[in-house]
């Protein structure tokens, strides 16, 4: 049986990484991730793990080292935030294109300029097309649980893709919560022995990574990369089912909260979903059928399943903690695409909230739900994309 602790999100994820005991870690400090890798490097220094830690001069080098170590045949981790993820940009696509199962917690933080160290999803949303699997976490417990499951997803022999585990900077990374840890042995047997695929260090079977592929074959490789993404959802569900057996905690591709008979719904990621659920409860208490959908697996995006879950809602607000300037928020674009697949046409509006760590308060969620009620009654949409909790 595991134990119940009061720890920060960073501490919980660092502990998950200790329990997994990877072969190699290369990371560079960046707020708000710093304290996670600082804790992990203490585990290395204290001999609690067998991990070789590589000191690097940047995140570009950190992920480059991870690519080398992973191609060599090791179980490899790193972690980053914001500008660090931006600096990894080039290598993100290389890690995914080479199908290297690197696991990377991303402590979500806003991007410069202006400089801001607080939580929003601009960093990982910007990396959504890099070919990495992305899991999002509402709280410290989910971040801990997702980190452990990420290894099984990444290393599955049908998948072999890098995985980001996203959690909100400061709100989750630095807040102390009640978290249930699994036993070290449980985690060890859950993730299992690392299985290599084409390791560079197998000198009996020499291989080359990173060949030049010109127009005659490049598109076939990209088509194959998309194909492997279509297999991820099933693996995520299989891994979640096994995880439930050892943890008692249930995970899916997303969480549906009071959604089945909901007329109005919010779609919202990560920590703000917790706040929004309270507002949903408040509206339910008033007899209004409100619900919420919180995506967990963002890449690959489970369009069909999400559209099915939202099919009864008549008015929906997709809330984005990231922006596409001149476009809709990234989550909104996915939900809008999802509805193209099942024929239902709810009213779908987009709110941008919480950029750069701006507080998302229960009254903000209530205001949005109130607007959805008005749209349900009148059919009038004021604006399809708006910013909330912003001063005029």
């Amino acid at each position, binding site marked *: 049986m595991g134990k119940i602790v009061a720890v920060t999100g960073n501490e919980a994820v660092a502990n998950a990484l200790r329990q997994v005991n990877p072969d190699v870690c290369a990371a560079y400090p960046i707020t708000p991730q710093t304290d996670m890798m600082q804790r992990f490097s203490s585990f290395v220094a204290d001999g609690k793990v067998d991990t070789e830690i590589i000191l690097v001069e940047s995140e570009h080098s950190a992920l480059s080292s991870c690519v080398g170590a992973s191609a060599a045949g090791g179980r490899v981790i790193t972690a980053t935030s914001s500008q660090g993820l931006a600096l990894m940009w080039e290598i993100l696509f290389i890690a995914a*294109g*080479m*199908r*290297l199962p690197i696991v990377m917690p991303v402590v979500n933080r806003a991007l410069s300029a202006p400089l801001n160290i607080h939580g929003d999803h601009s960093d990982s949303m910007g990396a959504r097309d890099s070919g990495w699997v992305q899991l999002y976490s509402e709280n410290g417990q989910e971040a801990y649980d997702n980190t452990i499951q990420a290894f099984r997803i990444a290393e599955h022999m049908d998948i*072999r893709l890098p995985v980001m585990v996203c959690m909100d900077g400061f709100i989750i990374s630095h807040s102390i919560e009640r978290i249930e840890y699994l036993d070290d042995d449980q985690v060890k047997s859950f993730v299992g022995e690392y299985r290599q*695929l*084409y390791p560079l260090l197998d000198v009996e*079977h*020499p*291989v*080359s*990574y*990173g*060949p030049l*592929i010109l127009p*005659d*074959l490049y*598109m*076939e*490789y990209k*088509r*194959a990369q998309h*194909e*492997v993404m279509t297999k991820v959802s099933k693996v995520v569900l299989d891994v979640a089912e096994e995880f439930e057996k050892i943890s008692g905690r249930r995970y899916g591709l997303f969480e549906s909260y009071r959604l089945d008979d909901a007329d109005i719904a919010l779609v919202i990621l990560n920590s703000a979903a917790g706040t929004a659920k309270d507002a949903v409860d408040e509206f339910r208490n008033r007899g209004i059928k409100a619900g919420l959908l919180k995506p967990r697996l963002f890449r690959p995006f489970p369009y069909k399943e999400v559209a099915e879950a939202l099919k009864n809602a008549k008015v929906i607000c997709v809330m984005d903690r990231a922006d596409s300037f001149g476009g809709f928020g990234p989550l909104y674009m996915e939900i809008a695409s999802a509805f193209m697949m099942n024929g239902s046409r709810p009213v779908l509006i987009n709110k941008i909230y919480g950029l750069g760590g701006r507080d998302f308060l229960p009254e903000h969620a209530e205001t949005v739900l109130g607007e959805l009620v008005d749209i349900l009654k009148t059919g009038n949409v004021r604006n399809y994309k708006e910013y909330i909790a912003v001063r005029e």
Partner: protein
Amino acid sequence: MKGWKELTPGAVVTEPGSSEQFKTGSWRAFRPVWLPENCIQCLFCWMYCPDMAIKVKDGKREEFDYDFCKGCGICAMECPGKKGNKAIIMVEEGK
């Protein structure tokens, strides 16, 4: 050519030495031509060739390997020739 279902994950090349199958001679704009009557068999061309496009047998050079010669012209530049007459000259492809 292979279809997308037949590819190795991550474009990993599992066959060692397979670059030999990738003929690079088509990159050439100028073709080196060997004139044996001016050749003193110094093998400077063999030594300077950045690829392995000059074949040598029993210590003597033979014809160019045009499958891999990219026409860089280093061999022609280094060739001392005989009495000022080069044993390697560069000729534009297609002429």
